[in-house]
């Protein structure tokens, strides 16, 4: 099976054009799934917290996390309300960018 998602990288180009310079930025990705989009922008950011309520997808994301991103990307299997209950505003540094990737 050779299903390709975004083979022309239109999504990646649009996201990076919209996000601008991610150097030094702390990003919260909501609805990250298995990390498909996370890999595209995480190398440019300082830190990425990526959440998804689907534990199976988060498990795959953790398995597929490239070694060079392990210090930079953290996945949580939870929805947004659970995340903010665990990490309420002020408990950590605020995010510079929140990314709703097909999840609103």
């Amino acid at each position, binding site marked *: 099976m050779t299903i*390709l998602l975004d083979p022309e990288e239109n999504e990646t180009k649009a996201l990076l054009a919209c996000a601008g310079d991610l150097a030094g930025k702390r990003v919260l990705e909501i609805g990250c799934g298995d990390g498909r989009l996370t890999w595209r922008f995480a190398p440019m950011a300082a830190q990425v917290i990526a959440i998804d309520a689907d534990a199976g997808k988060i498990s795959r994301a953790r398995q597929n996390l490239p070694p060079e991103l392990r210090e930079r990307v953290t996945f949580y299997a939870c929805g947004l309300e659970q995340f903010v209950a665990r990490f309420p505003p002020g408990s950590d540094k605020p*995010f*510079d960018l929140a990314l*709703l990737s*097909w999840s609103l």
Partner: protein
Amino acid sequence: MHALEIIHTLLARDGCLIDLHPDGQPPPFVAWIGGQSYLFGRLQESDDFIEYAQADAALAEAIRRGWFEVERQASFSFITHGDSAAELFAFLNENWTDAVIADEVGERAQELSLLYGPISSVQMSEQTRIARLRKISRV
């Protein structure tokens, strides 16, 4: 609490939000045969893509409430590519819970193959919106 209000509380004072979601129009299926493209149907959803209209409404509400303002917007085609209609349909049925692919869509793909030759690839193209919104910090 509204999801976008939660996000507002998590962002830095000069933080921003980027949202991506499809525009809600049924995405077309295109078959490539001998270098030519042929439209042979569209994906439907059992709930008529209502979630995308709801996403639009949620963003509009967040802007109305003064949580965010739009800095820029754009759109792009998000393509899902398969080597055959059967392969693409199987992927969609497995990964898209609300997907509805009418029988006549698959039949049309077979007709094209009989008329014009073997299908080399099939694509589904979703027109997707991307918006960057700036957090409005309450004084």
